């Protein structure tokens, strides 16, 4: 049996991306908490952040399918930066 504990779901410590943005999960950008003093950031458990991100991808995939039978790809990488920054 598993028991949910918010404390077990604390996200990792943020690392700075630029002056405005931090990252705690790969590819999930967050406003720098120092820039959220007027409206503090919600305390989200890790699973909820992951759920929201996954739902976003589901949503975009659904939209593609809704508008056309297929999406044509070029097979080309980004010419401004690598797709993966990892």
């Amino acid at each position, binding site marked *: 049996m598993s028991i949910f504990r918010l404390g077990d779901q604390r996200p990792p410590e943020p690392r700075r*991306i*630029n002056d*405005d*943005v931090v990252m705690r999960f790969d*590819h*999930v*950008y967050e*406003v720098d908490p120092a*820039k*959220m*003093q*007027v*409206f503090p950031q919600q305390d989200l458990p890790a699973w909820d952040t992951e759920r929201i991100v996954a739902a976003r991808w589901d*949503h*975009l*995939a659904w*939209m*593609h399918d*809704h*508008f*056309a*039978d*297929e*999406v*044509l*790809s*070029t*097979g*080309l*990488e*980004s*010419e*401004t*930066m690598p*797709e993966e*920054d990892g």
Partner: protein
Amino acid sequence: MIAAIDDAVLDELRAIIGDDDRVLDNVSSRAMRTRVPAPFPVHRWAQHMPDVAVLPVSAEEVSEVVKLANRLKVPIVPRAGGTGLADGAVPLRGGILVDVKLMNRIHEIDLVDRTVTVGPGINMLKLNERLRPHGVFYPDDPASYPCSLVGGRIGTGGWSLLGARYGHTRDLVISMEVVLPTGEIVQIGEGGGTKLRKSSTGLTLKHLFTGHQGTLGICTRATLELVPRPETEFAAFFAFRDYMEAWRTTGALTTSGLATLAGVVLFDEWKLRYLRRDDEAYIPQPQDVRAVIAVAMYGRRAEVEPASRIVMELGRADGGRYLGDEISQGDWASRHDRYATPLHGRTLDGQAVPMSWHCEDAALNYSVLPQVREEWHAIVDRYIREYGIFDDWGMFAYTNGAYKPWGDYLVEIDVGIWEQRLDDANWEAWVRCKREIAEVSLKYGGSITACHGATREGDAELVPTEMGASWAVVKRIKRALDPNNVMNPGKQMLDEAYE
């Protein structure tokens, strides 16, 4: 003279509707049918509430409600999804609000003559789910695609992301049933046909009844165009170091002659600065990405695939760099649903605060985009520094012509507004800012609104100026159709018709 909504009027409405649950005079039902997503004077919310909301289910019910309003000279305001980015559906003088959401049936799908006939309360996404098994599609695609309704699209004269390929709302409505401000039910289309795309009989009234912002009647049924469901979608985004490179490339793409081109969008430097703050696709982009072009195509694979190669060539011919499949496809998919985005902006000291979204929607020619962009941003920057409740979210230019992607653009400057800080002084500042932006559009031979409607302070007072000598014709039409000025009064300066 405006009559009050008293118990006797409510009793008459209940007798017409025949169902007390569809005649709503409680505060919550009225309050939730007051504002739209555009920045709203929240400190004066009560001044914009209707006195009662009714939810008819037939043209006959709408007709009787309108006849009652006309007899009593009570304002009547049509409202569909309430997702507009101006105030077409916002009551300015109370009265009866006609909410058409329950008129959401599909009356007929005609696969032979390629039409679908619907009530005004249906949403395009839900409609297309029902159309999909038949291999057809209704291609009206606003940024509010999952939540706006057909009736509102007709009332406001909507613009579609896919308009360069398939046309905009007014091009996609073949005919409609309309309840006039005096209560008559009329059929509006091409000549006398309900499923004809072109006629030269009589006068062409269809465009008069699309984009009137609810001031000439209430659409109760619409016959819409069906197109073959697209087999293939292609989206490509290109980054530029310089706005003018991107502007030139936009011109090249839109005059390429590719028939499957559904839309081209040009994002400026300010938009990139905004996206680099808060959008996952742009945060990691290098600083030399200062403008972006988005291109989208729809059609058969046999058309789209070779055309995509031309797009890739044109997009990179003048300094453009491809942003990659993941960003291109993901960003394009998100454009069908901008209302799902929680909006926040920045204060002068960089703090993130919730803001609502003003989306200027001028129609402007290609030639003037670079100069208008400079002047618009200068105006907004001045108000940001003076008031501290605004934020510049940058500028888009979308292809605006139906079936013709060249020549003119729906041009947005997106401005964040911290609504919680609104009071009379700050709201008046916003109205002045809005007016200055609109005046620039007129100075450059543009129109102040391509799709949202000039229905709010800051826009509305410029309508007579923009219309020029034809304003007299507009006023005569309004007065002839709505002799008592009951249909959505106070919008677009049409009160002048009664002076």
